[in-house]
């Protein structure tokens, strides 16, 4: 094997992500020039980025608020989803009873949930966390349950024949087997989570985040502001997704390495 030109696969992956982002900005800029789109209809990406850097401290504060809601809600949703999936596969009766309820929860339009949550929990963090968690837990539950159900029964039999305790069998045999599906669920959740935070902010908010900022910029015909908020929301979603790709890479070394360290 030649080592002198081997680049770390993660580095290559990040390179392609950056390239794709630049490509999107390029197409956006090109469309503005080619179709002569006026600035108040759609600003050029350069103008939006310029505006972001010009208002650094304010923008960072807005972004921090939305990021906080998104990440906290995400962690709660993922944890609840995982625990539910494990519980439901360990206790099949509970699974059959709870599963339809979970599906129903996703059929309720998220905008419809937001209003009652604000009535119950007020204008603070809580309703936003619940909305984000509500969106995120579902793909995690479904994927982890599928993962646990698909563990090879012969593998389970082998663990029984080796005299495995239920807990150790779960931790050593079953849990790693559903890491792949778990990360699939987490990645799907990551791209949706920020939508939940924004809907929460739109319904009612005591603190300004990117969502509330987008509404007020829209009301003031501040097109650049609208696009700036949108760009940052997207950045949160894409950033979470890419972070998960990296965590997954680090958590599953056997997929890309021949030996352990």
């Amino acid at each position: 094997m030649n080592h002198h030109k081997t680049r770390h696969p993660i580095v290559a992956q990040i390179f392609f992500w950056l390239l794709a982002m630049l490509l999107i900005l390029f197409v956006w800029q090109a469309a503005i020039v080619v179709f002569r789109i006026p600035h108040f209809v759609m600003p050029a990406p350069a103008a939006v980025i310029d505006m972001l850097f010009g208002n650094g401290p304010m923008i960072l504060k807005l972004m921090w608020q939305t990021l906080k809601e998104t990440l906290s809600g995400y962690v709660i949703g993922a944890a609840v989803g995982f625990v539910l999936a494990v519980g439901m596969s360990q206790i099949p009766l509970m699974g059959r009873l709870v599963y339809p309820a979970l599906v129903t929860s996703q059929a309720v339009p998220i905008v419809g949930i937001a209003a009652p949550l604000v009535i119950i929990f007020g204008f603070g963090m809580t309703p936003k966390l619940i909305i984000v968690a509500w969106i995120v837990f579902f793909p995690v539950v479904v994927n982890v349950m599928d993962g646990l159900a698909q563990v090879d029964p012969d593998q389970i039999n082998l663990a029984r024949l080796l005299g495995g305790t239920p807990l150790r069998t779960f931790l050593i045999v079953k849990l790693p087997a559903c890491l792949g599906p778990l990360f699939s669920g987490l990645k799907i959740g990551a791209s949706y989570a920020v939508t939940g935070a924004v809907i929460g902010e739109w319904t009612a908010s005591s603190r300004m985040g990117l969502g509330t900022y987008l509404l007020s910029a829209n009301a003031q015909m501040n097109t650049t502001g609208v696009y700036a908020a949108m760009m940052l929301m997207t950045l949160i979603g894409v950033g979470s997704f890419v972070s998960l790709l990296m965590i997954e890479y680090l958590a599953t070394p056997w997929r890309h390495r021949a030996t352990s360290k």
Partner: protein
Amino acid sequence: MHDISLDIADGEFVCVLGASGCGKSTLFNAVSGLLKVDSGSIRLEDEDVVGKPGRVGYMLQKDLLLPWRTALGNIVLGASLTRGANASDRAKAVELATHYGLGGYLNHYPRALSGGMRQRVALMRTIVAGRELMLLDEPFAALDSLTRFTMQRWLLQVWTEMKRTIMFVTHDIDEALFLADRVVVMLPNPGRIGRILHVNLERPREVACMASPAFMQLKAEALRLLYESP
């Protein structure tokens, strides 16, 4: 299955030979304790083991190695699943695996190993689990014929040195005769024992013994039982 009666001596190598559908695997699952039998008894050193998994070692055609554990991690799986593997478990496993030619692969994930290597790791896992009786259910059936033969000789070496009792299921007559002290020929509908052949070939067995008149005679006998029984 009907009227199966079989006594296996300590340290004996018994092959169960038969076409598919004759109940070989059922017999195995019953002996392993995974399958509860309705009538009859299965005794291991005078202890009834019906429906009690965990008393015998077990290895299948599928190696069932955990992809997220290294070869060494898979070999000590038994200890990991019961009480957690400690340094001494690992040291013993390393010593044994090194003796049987796996020393250079202990840090490899199963994905990076060949089919033959993976089966060696699986057999080491079975041995390290420390059961007196080992059940092997067509462990080499998925390997190419050259690798299979290498594995058969390797298995005989392991068996001779480790002094375990082996019950080995196969549908390959040559494999059964080359390995076993006794070959139990099973017949279908209902699953039953046709005859038990005593393989009096000298040990250690070399490749040449497979062309000897004694081997041929046993093979003819087995073929007649398998294909001409009513």
